[in-house]
Protein backbone atom coordinates (compact mmCIF):
# COMPACT_ATOMS: atom_id res chain seq x y z
CA UNK A 1 0.00 0.00 0.00
CA UNK A 2 1.18 3.46 -0.89
CA UNK A 3 1.11 5.20 2.46
CA UNK A 4 2.12 8.55 1.08
CA UNK A 5 -0.79 8.44 -1.31
CA UNK A 6 -3.13 7.40 1.47
CA UNK A 7 -1.77 10.23 3.57
CA UNK A 8 -2.33 12.79 0.85
CA UNK A 9 -5.82 11.52 0.12
CA UNK A 10 -6.64 11.56 3.82
CA UNK A 11 -5.29 15.06 4.18
CA UNK A 12 -7.38 16.30 1.28
CA UNK A 13 -10.39 14.52 2.78
CA UNK A 14 -9.81 15.94 6.22
CA UNK A 15 -9.49 19.45 4.82
CA UNK A 16 -12.79 19.00 2.99
CA UNK A 17 -14.17 17.50 6.18
CA UNK A 18 -13.24 20.70 7.97
CA UNK A 19 -15.62 22.56 5.69
CA UNK A 20 -18.28 19.92 6.28
CA UNK A 21 -17.79 20.45 9.98
CA UNK A 22 -18.36 24.15 9.50
CA UNK A 23 -21.58 23.57 7.57
CA UNK A 24 -22.61 20.95 10.09
CA UNK A 25 -22.04 23.47 12.83
CA UNK A 26 -24.29 25.94 11.05
CA UNK A 27 -26.92 23.26 10.77
CA UNK A 28 -26.68 22.22 14.39
CA UNK A 29 -26.88 25.79 15.67
CA UNK A 30 -30.19 26.21 13.91
CA UNK A 31 -31.46 22.85 15.03
CA UNK A 32 -30.39 23.23 18.63
CA UNK A 33 -31.97 26.61 19.11
CA UNK A 34 -35.11 26.20 17.02
CA UNK A 35 -35.60 22.45 16.46
CA UNK A 36 -35.80 23.04 12.75
CA UNK A 37 -34.04 20.66 10.40
CA UNK A 38 -32.92 22.97 7.67
CA UNK A 39 -32.99 21.19 4.33
CA UNK A 40 -32.28 24.49 2.64
CA UNK A 41 -28.79 24.82 4.06
CA UNK A 42 -27.16 23.78 0.77
CA UNK A 43 -29.15 26.42 -1.06
CA UNK A 44 -28.19 29.09 1.45
CA UNK A 45 -24.57 28.16 0.78
CA UNK A 46 -25.22 28.39 -2.91
CA UNK A 47 -26.85 31.78 -2.58
CA UNK A 48 -23.88 33.17 -0.70
CA UNK A 49 -21.50 31.76 -3.28
CA UNK A 50 -23.46 33.48 -6.04
CA UNK A 51 -23.34 36.71 -4.08
CA UNK A 52 -19.59 36.34 -3.93
CA UNK A 53 -19.53 35.76 -7.66
CA UNK A 54 -21.56 38.90 -8.20
CA UNK A 55 -19.43 41.02 -5.90
CA UNK A 56 -16.01 39.72 -6.88
CA UNK A 57 -16.72 38.79 -10.48
CA UNK A 58 -19.44 41.10 -11.66
CA UNK A 59 -18.68 44.19 -9.63
CA UNK A 60 -14.97 43.51 -9.60
CA UNK A 61 -14.51 44.08 -5.91
CA UNK A 62 -11.49 42.71 -4.17
CA UNK A 63 -12.29 39.14 -3.14
CA UNK A 64 -11.36 40.04 0.40
CA UNK A 65 -14.15 42.61 0.44
CA UNK A 66 -16.52 40.43 -1.49
CA UNK A 67 -16.06 37.46 0.83
CA UNK A 68 -17.34 39.13 4.00
CA UNK A 69 -20.08 40.86 2.06
CA UNK A 70 -21.28 37.61 0.53
CA UNK A 71 -21.15 35.85 3.87
CA UNK A 72 -23.08 38.68 5.43
CA UNK A 73 -25.61 38.48 2.64
CA UNK A 74 -26.05 34.76 3.20
CA UNK A 75 -26.56 35.20 6.91
CA UNK A 76 -29.04 37.98 6.31
CA UNK A 77 -30.91 35.64 4.01
CA UNK A 78 -31.06 33.13 6.86
CA UNK A 79 -32.49 35.77 9.14
CA UNK A 80 -35.12 36.78 6.64
CA UNK A 81 -36.12 33.19 5.95
CA UNK A 82 -36.59 32.62 9.65
CA UNK A 83 -38.66 35.71 10.06
CA UNK A 84 -41.07 35.30 7.19
CA UNK A 85 -41.31 31.58 6.60
CA UNK A 86 -40.21 29.66 9.66
CA UNK A 87 -41.71 31.75 12.42
CA UNK A 88 -45.29 31.29 11.22
CA UNK A 89 -44.67 27.57 11.56
CA UNK A 90 -43.88 27.76 15.29
CA UNK A 91 -45.62 24.94 17.04
CA UNK A 92 -46.38 22.99 13.85
CA UNK A 93 -45.18 19.42 13.43
CA UNK A 94 -41.54 18.97 12.55
CA UNK A 95 -42.40 17.34 9.23
CA UNK A 96 -44.29 20.42 8.16
CA UNK A 97 -41.39 22.64 9.06
CA UNK A 98 -38.98 20.41 7.17
CA UNK A 99 -41.17 20.59 4.12
CA UNK A 100 -41.17 24.35 4.41
CA UNK A 101 -37.39 24.33 4.26
CA UNK A 102 -37.55 22.06 1.22
CA UNK A 103 -39.88 24.58 -0.36
CA UNK A 104 -37.48 27.36 0.51
CA UNK A 105 -34.67 25.43 -1.13
CA UNK A 106 -36.66 25.22 -4.32
CA UNK A 107 -37.47 28.92 -4.22
CA UNK A 108 -33.81 29.78 -3.76
CA UNK A 109 -32.79 27.65 -6.72
CA UNK A 110 -35.36 29.43 -8.84
CA UNK A 111 -34.28 32.85 -7.68
CA UNK A 112 -30.63 32.10 -8.36
CA UNK A 113 -31.44 30.79 -11.83
CA UNK A 114 -33.49 33.85 -12.51
CA UNK A 115 -30.78 36.28 -11.50
CA UNK A 116 -27.65 34.48 -12.61
CA UNK A 117 -28.93 31.97 -15.13
CA UNK A 118 -28.44 28.24 -15.15
CA UNK A 119 -24.93 28.26 -16.59
CA UNK A 120 -22.17 26.70 -14.59
CA UNK A 121 -19.91 29.32 -13.06
CA UNK A 122 -16.43 29.57 -11.70
CA UNK A 123 -15.57 31.82 -8.81
CA UNK A 124 -12.71 34.26 -9.32
CA UNK A 125 -9.77 32.58 -7.68
CA UNK A 126 -8.63 34.43 -4.62
CA UNK A 127 -6.73 31.89 -2.61
CA UNK A 128 -2.96 31.51 -3.06
CA UNK A 129 -2.04 29.04 -5.77
CA UNK A 130 1.30 27.86 -4.52
CA UNK A 131 1.20 24.17 -3.63
CA UNK A 132 1.23 23.37 0.04
CA UNK A 133 3.41 20.57 1.31
CA UNK A 134 3.04 19.07 4.73
CA UNK A 135 6.17 17.01 5.06
CA UNK A 136 6.22 15.11 1.79
CA UNK A 137 2.48 15.28 1.43
CA UNK A 138 0.98 17.52 -1.19
CA UNK A 139 -2.18 19.42 -0.42
CA UNK A 140 -4.05 21.47 -2.99
CA UNK A 141 -3.67 25.12 -1.99
CA UNK A 142 -7.35 25.95 -2.37
CA UNK A 143 -8.49 23.37 0.11
CA UNK A 144 -5.62 24.07 2.44
CA UNK A 145 -6.42 27.75 2.70
CA UNK A 146 -10.13 27.10 2.57
CA UNK A 147 -9.70 24.83 5.53
CA UNK A 148 -7.74 27.47 7.43
CA UNK A 149 -10.37 30.15 6.88
CA UNK A 150 -13.15 27.75 7.80
CA UNK A 151 -11.31 26.58 10.89
CA UNK A 152 -10.80 30.16 11.97
CA UNK A 153 -14.52 30.84 11.93
CA UNK A 154 -15.17 27.54 13.63
CA UNK A 155 -12.90 28.50 16.50
CA UNK A 156 -14.47 31.94 16.78
CA UNK A 157 -17.87 30.30 17.00
CA UNK A 158 -16.84 27.78 19.60
CA UNK A 159 -15.29 30.50 21.74
CA UNK A 160 -18.36 32.65 21.34
CA UNK A 161 -20.77 29.94 22.38
CA UNK A 162 -18.62 28.85 25.24
CA UNK A 163 -17.74 32.16 26.76
CA UNK A 164 -20.00 34.98 25.67
CA UNK A 165 -23.26 36.01 27.22
CA UNK A 166 -24.98 35.66 23.85
CA UNK A 167 -23.70 32.12 23.66
CA UNK A 168 -25.25 31.42 27.03
CA UNK A 169 -28.58 32.77 25.81
CA UNK A 170 -28.40 30.55 22.77
CA UNK A 171 -27.56 27.46 24.76
CA UNK A 172 -30.16 28.29 27.37
CA UNK A 173 -32.83 28.58 24.70
CA UNK A 174 -31.69 25.33 23.18
CA UNK A 175 -31.89 23.62 26.53
CA UNK A 176 -35.32 24.87 27.61
CA UNK A 177 -37.35 27.35 25.63
CA UNK A 178 -39.99 28.19 28.19
CA UNK A 179 -37.38 28.57 30.90
CA UNK A 180 -35.40 30.88 28.64
CA UNK A 181 -38.45 33.05 28.25
CA UNK A 182 -38.83 33.14 32.00
CA UNK A 183 -35.25 34.42 32.33
CA UNK A 184 -36.11 37.44 30.25
CA UNK A 185 -34.33 36.12 27.18
CA UNK A 186 -35.96 37.27 23.98
CA UNK A 187 -36.40 33.81 22.54
CA UNK A 188 -37.74 34.95 19.19
CA UNK A 189 -34.66 37.04 18.74
CA UNK A 190 -32.48 34.09 19.68
CA UNK A 191 -34.25 32.01 17.03
CA UNK A 192 -33.54 34.66 14.50
CA UNK A 193 -29.93 34.96 15.55
CA UNK A 194 -29.50 31.21 15.40
CA UNK A 195 -30.58 31.31 11.77
CA UNK A 196 -28.28 34.23 11.13
CA UNK A 197 -25.30 32.53 12.77
CA UNK A 198 -26.06 29.16 11.23
CA UNK A 199 -26.43 30.67 7.79
CA UNK A 200 -23.26 32.64 8.29
CA UNK A 201 -21.23 29.50 8.86
CA UNK A 202 -22.92 27.83 5.91
CA UNK A 203 -22.34 30.87 3.71
CA UNK A 204 -18.64 31.00 4.40
CA UNK A 205 -18.38 27.30 3.73
CA UNK A 206 -20.45 27.81 0.61
CA UNK A 207 -18.04 30.32 -0.87
CA UNK A 208 -15.05 28.18 0.04
CA UNK A 209 -16.53 24.99 -1.38
CA UNK A 210 -17.66 26.75 -4.54
CA UNK A 211 -14.19 28.22 -4.88
CA UNK A 212 -12.72 24.73 -5.03
CA UNK A 213 -15.37 23.01 -7.10
CA UNK A 214 -17.31 25.53 -9.13
CA UNK A 215 -20.86 26.70 -8.84
CA UNK A 216 -24.22 26.06 -10.45
CA UNK A 217 -27.84 26.10 -9.35
CA UNK A 218 -27.44 22.41 -8.49
CA UNK A 219 -24.79 23.28 -5.93
CA UNK A 220 -27.27 22.83 -3.09
CA UNK A 221 -27.09 19.06 -3.47
CA UNK A 222 -24.14 19.26 -1.10
CA UNK A 223 -26.84 19.55 1.56
CA UNK A 224 -27.25 15.79 1.34
CA UNK A 225 -23.69 15.21 2.51
CA UNK A 226 -24.30 17.67 5.31
CA UNK A 227 -27.40 15.77 6.33
CA UNK A 228 -25.29 12.66 6.68
CA UNK A 229 -22.82 14.60 8.78
CA UNK A 230 -25.35 15.89 11.26
CA UNK A 231 -27.27 12.65 11.55
CA UNK A 232 -24.08 10.71 12.18
CA UNK A 233 -22.90 13.29 14.68
CA UNK A 234 -26.27 13.80 16.29
CA UNK A 235 -28.58 16.63 15.31
CA UNK A 236 -28.13 18.59 18.48
CA UNK A 237 -24.47 18.04 19.13
CA UNK A 238 -21.85 20.58 18.17
CA UNK A 239 -19.04 18.19 18.99
CA UNK A 240 -20.85 15.58 16.93
CA UNK A 241 -21.04 17.87 13.92
CA UNK A 242 -17.33 18.62 14.15
CA UNK A 243 -16.20 15.04 14.45
CA UNK A 244 -18.70 13.64 11.99
CA UNK A 245 -17.95 16.46 9.54
CA UNK A 246 -14.28 15.67 9.46
CA UNK A 247 -14.95 11.96 9.36
CA UNK A 248 -17.51 12.07 6.56
CA UNK A 249 -15.31 14.40 4.52
CA UNK A 250 -12.45 11.98 4.90
CA UNK A 251 -14.57 8.94 4.15
CA UNK A 252 -16.09 10.49 1.04
CA UNK A 253 -12.71 11.35 -0.35
CA UNK A 254 -11.08 8.05 0.47
CA UNK A 255 -14.02 6.08 -0.93
CA UNK A 256 -13.93 8.23 -4.05
CA UNK A 257 -10.20 7.74 -4.47
CA UNK A 258 -10.04 4.01 -3.85
CA UNK A 259 -13.40 2.78 -5.08
CA UNK A 260 -14.33 5.42 -7.63
CA UNK A 261 -16.43 8.56 -7.69
CA UNK A 262 -19.70 6.68 -7.83
CA UNK A 263 -18.99 5.25 -4.37
CA UNK A 264 -18.71 8.56 -2.54
CA UNK A 265 -22.38 8.87 -1.66
CA UNK A 266 -23.14 5.20 -1.02
CA UNK A 267 -20.12 4.95 1.28
CA UNK A 268 -21.26 7.78 3.52
CA UNK A 269 -24.87 6.67 3.40
CA UNK A 270 -23.78 3.21 4.43
CA UNK A 271 -22.26 4.76 7.54
CA UNK A 272 -25.47 6.67 8.02
CA UNK A 273 -27.53 3.50 7.79
CA UNK A 274 -25.36 1.74 10.33
CA UNK A 275 -25.62 4.69 12.68
CA UNK A 276 -29.39 4.81 12.32
CA UNK A 277 -29.67 1.17 13.23
CA UNK A 278 -27.29 1.11 16.15
CA UNK A 279 -27.32 4.66 17.47
CA UNK A 280 -30.49 6.18 16.09
CA UNK A 281 -29.80 9.57 17.58
CA UNK A 282 -26.28 9.89 16.27
CA UNK A 283 -22.94 9.43 17.93
CA UNK A 284 -23.39 12.35 20.27
CA UNK A 285 -27.02 13.32 19.98
CA UNK A 286 -29.43 13.27 22.89
CA UNK A 287 -32.25 10.84 22.85
CA UNK A 288 -35.34 12.59 24.01
CA UNK A 289 -37.38 10.48 26.40
CA UNK A 290 -40.99 10.42 25.52
CA UNK A 291 -43.53 10.98 28.22
CA UNK A 292 -46.88 9.32 28.26
Amino acid at each position, binding site marked *: MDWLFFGEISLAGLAMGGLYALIGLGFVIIYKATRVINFAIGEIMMFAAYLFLAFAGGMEMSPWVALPLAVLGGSLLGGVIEKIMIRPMLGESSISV*VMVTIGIASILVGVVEMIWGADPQLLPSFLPRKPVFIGEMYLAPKIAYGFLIGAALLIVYLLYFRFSRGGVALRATASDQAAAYSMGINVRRVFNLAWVFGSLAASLAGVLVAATGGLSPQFGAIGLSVLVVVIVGGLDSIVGALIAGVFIGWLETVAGAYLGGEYRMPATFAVLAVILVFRPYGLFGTHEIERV
Partner: protein
Amino acid sequence: MRIGDAKQSYEADEAILTSSTQKIWFALFLFALLLFPFMADAYLLYLGCLVGIAVISTTGLNILTGFTGLISLGQAGFMGVGGYTVAWLSANTGLPFPVTLLLAGLLAAAVGILVGLPSLRVKGLYLAIATLAASVFLHFIFAEWESVTGGMGGLSLEPAHLFGLTFQSDFGMYFIIVPLAVLMVLAAKNVFRTRIGRAFIAIRDRDISAEILGINLLHYKLMSFALSSFYAGVAGGLFAYFFRVVTPESFPLSMSIFYLAAVIVGGMGNLLGGILGAAFMTLIPEALKLLTAALTPFYPNAPIFMSPMLEIIFGALIVGFLIFEPHGLAEIWHRIRRFFSLWPFKN
Protein backbone atom coordinates in the same frame (compact mmCIF):
# COMPACT_ATOMS: atom_id res chain seq x y z
CA MET B 1 -79.26 9.80 7.32
CA ARG B 2 -80.47 8.31 10.55
CA ILE B 3 -79.26 5.12 12.07
CA GLY B 4 -81.94 2.55 12.67
CA ASP B 5 -81.72 -0.66 14.61
CA ALA B 6 -81.33 -3.03 11.72
CA LYS B 7 -77.91 -4.34 10.87
CA GLN B 8 -78.58 -3.48 7.27
CA SER B 9 -78.49 0.13 8.22
CA TYR B 10 -75.03 0.12 9.77
CA GLU B 11 -73.77 -1.30 6.54
CA ALA B 12 -75.40 1.45 4.56
CA ASP B 13 -74.04 3.94 7.04
CA GLU B 14 -70.54 2.66 6.51
CA ALA B 15 -70.72 2.84 2.73
CA ILE B 16 -68.40 5.21 0.90
CA LEU B 17 -71.24 6.89 -0.93
CA THR B 18 -74.18 7.36 1.36
CA SER B 19 -76.49 9.61 -0.54
CA SER B 20 -78.00 9.21 -3.96
CA THR B 21 -76.66 12.61 -4.98
CA GLN B 22 -73.19 11.38 -4.27
CA LYS B 23 -73.77 8.24 -6.23
CA ILE B 24 -74.95 10.19 -9.25
CA TRP B 25 -71.96 12.48 -9.16
CA PHE B 26 -69.59 9.60 -8.79
CA ALA B 27 -71.15 7.80 -11.73
CA LEU B 28 -70.88 10.95 -13.80
CA PHE B 29 -67.26 11.25 -12.83
CA LEU B 30 -66.52 7.68 -13.90
CA PHE B 31 -68.33 8.26 -17.13
CA ALA B 32 -66.26 11.36 -17.78
CA LEU B 33 -63.09 9.38 -17.17
CA LEU B 34 -64.27 6.81 -19.67
CA LEU B 35 -65.16 9.42 -22.24
CA PHE B 36 -62.00 11.45 -21.80
CA PRO B 37 -59.65 9.51 -24.11
CA PHE B 38 -62.14 9.72 -26.94
CA MET B 39 -62.34 13.49 -26.66
CA ALA B 40 -58.81 14.44 -25.71
CA ASP B 41 -55.93 15.04 -28.09
CA ALA B 42 -52.64 13.22 -27.75
CA TYR B 43 -51.24 15.81 -25.43
CA LEU B 44 -54.15 15.80 -23.00
CA LEU B 45 -54.22 12.05 -23.11
CA TYR B 46 -50.57 12.01 -22.19
CA LEU B 47 -51.24 14.33 -19.27
CA GLY B 48 -54.19 12.21 -18.24
CA CYS B 49 -51.97 9.14 -18.03
CA LEU B 50 -49.32 11.05 -16.10
CA VAL B 51 -51.91 12.23 -13.60
CA GLY B 52 -53.17 8.67 -13.24
CA ILE B 53 -49.71 7.38 -12.38
CA ALA B 54 -49.17 10.29 -10.02
CA VAL B 55 -52.49 9.59 -8.29
CA ILE B 56 -51.47 6.00 -7.57
CA SER B 57 -48.09 6.97 -6.24
CA THR B 58 -49.41 9.88 -4.20
CA THR B 59 -52.14 7.71 -2.71
CA GLY B 60 -49.47 5.26 -1.65
CA LEU B 61 -47.34 7.94 -0.09
CA ASN B 62 -50.40 9.41 1.58
CA ILE B 63 -51.07 6.06 3.26
CA LEU B 64 -47.59 6.09 4.72
CA THR B 65 -46.99 9.74 5.42
CA GLY B 66 -50.44 11.26 5.62
CA PHE B 67 -52.22 8.49 7.46
CA THR B 68 -49.50 6.68 9.35
CA GLY B 69 -47.33 9.70 10.02
CA LEU B 70 -44.13 8.15 8.69
CA ILE B 71 -42.32 10.56 6.44
CA SER B 72 -40.70 8.98 3.44
CA LEU B 73 -38.23 10.46 1.02
CA GLY B 74 -37.92 7.11 -0.71
CA GLN B 75 -41.01 7.08 -2.88
CA ALA B 76 -39.08 7.55 -6.12
CA GLY B 77 -36.78 4.71 -5.12
CA PHE B 78 -39.73 2.37 -4.55
CA MET B 79 -41.18 3.42 -7.87
CA GLY B 80 -37.82 2.62 -9.36
CA VAL B 81 -37.98 -0.88 -7.91
CA GLY B 82 -41.36 -1.31 -9.57
CA GLY B 83 -40.17 0.17 -12.84
CA TYR B 84 -37.09 -1.99 -13.06
CA THR B 85 -39.00 -5.10 -12.05
CA VAL B 86 -41.44 -4.59 -14.87
CA ALA B 87 -38.65 -3.78 -17.31
CA TRP B 88 -36.64 -6.82 -16.35
CA LEU B 89 -39.63 -9.17 -16.37
CA SER B 90 -40.82 -7.98 -19.72
CA ALA B 91 -37.37 -8.42 -21.19
CA ASN B 92 -36.66 -11.80 -19.65
CA THR B 93 -40.04 -13.46 -19.31
CA GLY B 94 -43.17 -13.47 -21.35
CA LEU B 95 -45.41 -12.54 -18.47
CA PRO B 96 -48.45 -10.42 -19.25
CA PHE B 97 -48.65 -6.98 -17.71
CA PRO B 98 -51.06 -7.69 -14.83
CA VAL B 99 -48.61 -10.24 -13.50
CA THR B 100 -45.55 -8.04 -13.96
CA LEU B 101 -47.33 -5.12 -12.30
CA LEU B 102 -48.34 -7.28 -9.38
CA LEU B 103 -44.80 -8.57 -9.00
CA ALA B 104 -43.49 -5.01 -9.30
CA GLY B 105 -45.77 -3.99 -6.46
CA LEU B 106 -44.82 -6.98 -4.35
CA LEU B 107 -41.09 -6.53 -4.81
CA ALA B 108 -41.40 -2.84 -4.02
CA ALA B 109 -43.41 -3.79 -0.94
CA ALA B 110 -40.67 -6.16 0.15
CA VAL B 111 -38.08 -3.42 -0.25
CA GLY B 112 -40.43 -1.09 1.60
CA ILE B 113 -40.58 -3.47 4.53
CA LEU B 114 -36.82 -3.65 4.62
CA VAL B 115 -36.55 0.13 4.61
CA GLY B 116 -39.28 0.39 7.22
CA LEU B 117 -37.47 -1.86 9.66
CA PRO B 118 -35.73 0.99 11.48
CA SER B 119 -39.09 2.68 11.97
CA LEU B 120 -39.58 1.16 15.37
CA ARG B 121 -36.39 2.65 16.68
CA VAL B 122 -36.23 5.90 14.80
CA LYS B 123 -39.02 8.34 14.36
CA GLY B 124 -39.97 11.42 12.47
CA LEU B 125 -37.16 13.05 10.66
CA TYR B 126 -34.62 10.42 11.49
CA LEU B 127 -36.86 7.99 9.69
CA ALA B 128 -37.21 10.37 6.77
CA ILE B 129 -33.46 10.36 6.52
CA ALA B 130 -33.33 6.59 6.71
CA THR B 131 -35.64 6.50 3.70
CA LEU B 132 -33.40 9.02 2.02
CA ALA B 133 -30.47 6.72 2.59
CA ALA B 134 -32.50 3.90 1.08
CA SER B 135 -33.18 5.92 -2.02
CA VAL B 136 -29.48 6.70 -2.39
CA PHE B 137 -28.71 2.99 -2.21
CA LEU B 138 -31.46 2.11 -4.64
CA HIS B 139 -30.16 4.68 -7.08
CA PHE B 140 -26.71 3.20 -6.69
CA ILE B 141 -28.03 -0.27 -7.39
CA PHE B 142 -29.95 0.92 -10.45
CA ALA B 143 -26.83 2.61 -11.76
CA GLU B 144 -24.26 -0.03 -10.99
CA TRP B 145 -25.90 -3.44 -11.21
CA GLU B 146 -25.45 -3.43 -14.93
CA SER B 147 -26.25 -7.06 -15.64
CA VAL B 148 -29.78 -6.58 -14.33
CA THR B 149 -30.53 -2.89 -14.63
CA GLY B 150 -28.52 -2.00 -17.69
CA GLY B 151 -26.47 0.51 -15.72
CA MET B 152 -26.76 4.19 -16.49
CA GLY B 153 -28.24 3.42 -19.88
CA GLY B 154 -31.19 1.70 -18.29
CA LEU B 155 -33.58 -0.79 -19.85
CA SER B 156 -36.08 -0.49 -22.64
CA LEU B 157 -39.28 -2.48 -22.63
CA GLU B 158 -41.75 -3.95 -25.02
CA PRO B 159 -45.25 -2.53 -24.73
CA ALA B 160 -47.61 -4.02 -22.17
CA HIS B 161 -49.53 -6.96 -23.54
CA LEU B 162 -52.39 -9.19 -22.48
CA PHE B 163 -54.33 -11.84 -24.37
CA GLY B 164 -52.76 -10.81 -27.61
CA LEU B 165 -53.63 -7.17 -27.06
CA THR B 166 -50.74 -4.74 -27.10
CA PHE B 167 -50.96 -1.48 -25.24
CA GLN B 168 -48.64 0.62 -27.26
CA SER B 169 -50.27 4.01 -27.51
CA ASP B 170 -51.19 6.42 -24.79
CA PHE B 171 -54.77 5.61 -25.66
CA GLY B 172 -54.25 2.02 -24.72
CA MET B 173 -52.22 2.84 -21.65
CA TYR B 174 -54.96 5.14 -20.45
CA PHE B 175 -57.25 2.15 -20.14
CA ILE B 176 -54.71 0.40 -17.97
CA ILE B 177 -53.64 3.34 -15.87
CA VAL B 178 -56.89 5.06 -15.07
CA PRO B 179 -59.01 2.04 -14.09
CA LEU B 180 -56.12 0.84 -11.97
CA ALA B 181 -55.86 4.26 -10.33
CA VAL B 182 -59.58 4.24 -9.56
CA LEU B 183 -59.40 0.72 -8.15
CA MET B 184 -56.37 1.42 -6.04
CA VAL B 185 -57.83 4.60 -4.60
CA LEU B 186 -61.02 2.71 -3.74
CA ALA B 187 -58.98 -0.03 -2.13
CA ALA B 188 -57.19 2.58 -0.06
CA LYS B 189 -60.52 4.03 0.92
CA ASN B 190 -61.61 0.56 2.04
CA VAL B 191 -58.54 0.15 4.18
CA PHE B 192 -59.53 3.23 6.11
CA ARG B 193 -62.94 1.78 6.79
CA THR B 194 -61.42 -1.12 8.66
CA ARG B 195 -59.27 -1.88 11.65
CA ILE B 196 -56.06 -1.65 9.69
CA GLY B 197 -56.65 1.85 8.49
CA ARG B 198 -57.72 2.92 11.95
CA ALA B 199 -54.56 1.43 13.36
CA PHE B 200 -52.49 3.47 10.89
CA ILE B 201 -54.18 6.69 11.91
CA ALA B 202 -53.85 5.80 15.57
CA ILE B 203 -50.12 5.35 15.13
CA ARG B 204 -49.89 8.71 13.41
CA ASP B 205 -51.89 10.56 16.04
CA ARG B 206 -50.33 9.02 19.09
CA ASP B 207 -48.29 5.92 18.81
CA ILE B 208 -48.00 5.29 22.50
CA SER B 209 -51.70 5.17 23.13
CA ALA B 210 -52.08 3.06 20.02
CA GLU B 211 -49.89 0.51 21.72
CA ILE B 212 -52.15 0.60 24.77
CA LEU B 213 -55.04 -0.34 22.55
CA GLY B 214 -53.20 -3.47 21.55
CA ILE B 215 -51.83 -2.24 18.25
CA ASN B 216 -48.46 -3.77 17.51
CA LEU B 217 -46.52 -0.76 16.29
CA LEU B 218 -43.81 -2.50 14.29
CA HIS B 219 -46.31 -4.76 12.62
CA TYR B 220 -48.51 -1.92 11.45
CA LYS B 221 -45.72 0.44 10.56
CA LEU B 222 -44.24 -2.22 8.34
CA MET B 223 -47.63 -2.95 6.89
CA SER B 224 -48.00 0.70 6.05
CA PHE B 225 -44.58 0.74 4.45
CA ALA B 226 -45.45 -2.37 2.47
CA LEU B 227 -48.77 -1.03 1.28
CA SER B 228 -47.33 2.34 0.38
CA SER B 229 -44.43 0.81 -1.50
CA PHE B 230 -46.78 -1.56 -3.24
CA TYR B 231 -48.62 1.44 -4.64
CA ALA B 232 -45.32 3.04 -5.54
CA GLY B 233 -44.16 -0.16 -7.21
CA VAL B 234 -47.29 -0.41 -9.32
CA ALA B 235 -47.02 3.27 -10.22
CA GLY B 236 -43.37 2.71 -11.15
CA GLY B 237 -44.35 -0.30 -13.24
CA LEU B 238 -46.94 1.75 -15.08
CA PHE B 239 -44.36 4.47 -15.51
CA ALA B 240 -42.09 1.92 -17.16
CA TYR B 241 -44.82 0.67 -19.49
CA PHE B 242 -45.82 4.20 -20.27
CA PHE B 243 -42.39 5.57 -21.15
CA ARG B 244 -41.07 2.16 -22.14
CA VAL B 245 -37.64 2.92 -20.78
CA VAL B 246 -36.27 3.11 -17.26
CA THR B 247 -32.95 4.63 -16.30
CA PRO B 248 -31.58 5.54 -12.88
CA GLU B 249 -32.31 9.14 -13.76
CA SER B 250 -35.99 8.30 -14.28
CA PHE B 251 -36.42 8.15 -10.51
CA PRO B 252 -34.46 11.02 -8.97
CA LEU B 253 -34.72 12.27 -5.41
CA SER B 254 -36.59 15.30 -6.67
CA MET B 255 -39.38 12.93 -7.65
CA SER B 256 -39.77 11.80 -4.04
CA ILE B 257 -39.98 15.41 -3.02
CA PHE B 258 -42.48 16.02 -5.76
CA TYR B 259 -44.79 13.35 -4.37
CA LEU B 260 -44.37 14.56 -0.83
CA ALA B 261 -45.26 18.03 -2.04
CA ALA B 262 -48.30 16.64 -3.83
CA VAL B 263 -49.46 15.02 -0.60
CA ILE B 264 -48.97 18.24 1.34
CA VAL B 265 -50.53 20.51 -1.23
CA GLY B 266 -53.42 18.10 -1.61
CA GLY B 267 -53.93 17.49 2.07
CA MET B 268 -52.15 15.00 4.25
CA GLY B 269 -54.22 12.14 5.52
CA ASN B 270 -56.95 12.75 3.02
CA LEU B 271 -57.30 10.49 0.00
CA LEU B 272 -59.17 13.04 -2.03
CA GLY B 273 -56.43 15.49 -1.15
CA GLY B 274 -53.81 13.13 -2.52
CA ILE B 275 -55.69 12.90 -5.79
CA LEU B 276 -56.15 16.63 -6.05
CA GLY B 277 -52.52 17.22 -5.12
CA ALA B 278 -51.26 14.75 -7.72
CA ALA B 279 -53.33 16.34 -10.45
CA PHE B 280 -52.53 19.87 -9.39
CA MET B 281 -48.80 19.38 -9.14
CA THR B 282 -48.64 17.51 -12.45
CA LEU B 283 -50.59 20.15 -14.27
CA ILE B 284 -48.94 23.22 -12.78
CA PRO B 285 -45.99 23.20 -15.21
CA GLU B 286 -48.41 22.86 -18.09
CA ALA B 287 -50.54 25.72 -16.84
CA LEU B 288 -47.41 27.75 -16.52
CA LYS B 289 -46.52 26.93 -20.09
CA LEU B 290 -49.85 28.23 -21.26
CA LEU B 291 -49.20 31.37 -19.29
CA THR B 292 -45.79 31.67 -20.87
CA ALA B 293 -47.22 31.25 -24.31
CA ALA B 294 -49.76 33.94 -23.57
CA LEU B 295 -47.08 36.27 -22.28
CA THR B 296 -44.50 35.72 -24.97
CA PRO B 297 -45.92 38.18 -27.51
CA PHE B 298 -45.75 40.95 -24.91
CA TYR B 299 -42.77 39.80 -23.02
CA PRO B 300 -40.42 37.89 -25.29
CA ASN B 301 -38.17 36.66 -22.50
CA ALA B 302 -40.97 34.75 -20.84
CA PRO B 303 -39.68 31.26 -21.80
CA ILE B 304 -36.35 31.99 -20.16
CA PHE B 305 -38.04 32.83 -16.90
CA MET B 306 -40.32 29.88 -16.97
CA SER B 307 -38.07 27.22 -15.52
CA PRO B 308 -36.86 29.35 -12.61
CA MET B 309 -40.45 30.42 -12.12
CA LEU B 310 -41.45 26.79 -11.96
CA GLU B 311 -38.93 26.16 -9.19
CA ILE B 312 -40.12 29.22 -7.34
CA ILE B 313 -43.78 28.35 -7.72
CA PHE B 314 -43.14 24.76 -6.66
CA GLY B 315 -41.41 25.98 -3.51
CA ALA B 316 -43.89 28.73 -2.86
CA LEU B 317 -46.78 26.30 -3.14
CA ILE B 318 -45.25 24.05 -0.50
CA VAL B 319 -44.45 26.92 1.83
CA GLY B 320 -47.71 28.72 1.17
CA PHE B 321 -49.91 25.71 1.71
CA LEU B 322 -48.12 24.75 4.89
CA ILE B 323 -48.41 28.23 6.33
CA PHE B 324 -51.82 29.28 5.11
CA GLU B 325 -53.71 26.13 4.22
CA PRO B 326 -52.15 23.25 6.12
CA HIS B 327 -55.04 20.94 5.24
CA GLY B 328 -54.38 21.48 1.60
CA LEU B 329 -56.57 21.46 -1.46
CA ALA B 330 -58.94 18.97 0.12
CA GLU B 331 -59.92 21.59 2.67
CA ILE B 332 -60.46 24.17 -0.06
CA TRP B 333 -62.55 21.63 -1.91
CA HIS B 334 -64.69 21.02 1.18
CA ARG B 335 -65.14 24.73 1.67
CA ILE B 336 -66.30 25.15 -1.89
CA ARG B 337 -68.67 22.23 -1.45
CA ARG B 338 -70.08 23.64 1.72
CA PHE B 339 -70.45 26.96 0.06
CA PHE B 340 -72.57 25.58 -2.72
CA SER B 341 -74.24 23.08 -0.36
CA LEU B 342 -74.39 20.47 -3.01
CA TRP B 343 -74.71 17.78 -0.47
CA PRO B 344 -77.55 18.65 1.85
CA PHE B 345 -77.81 15.12 3.19
CA LYS B 346 -74.29 14.73 4.41
CA ASN B 347 -72.80 16.67 7.26
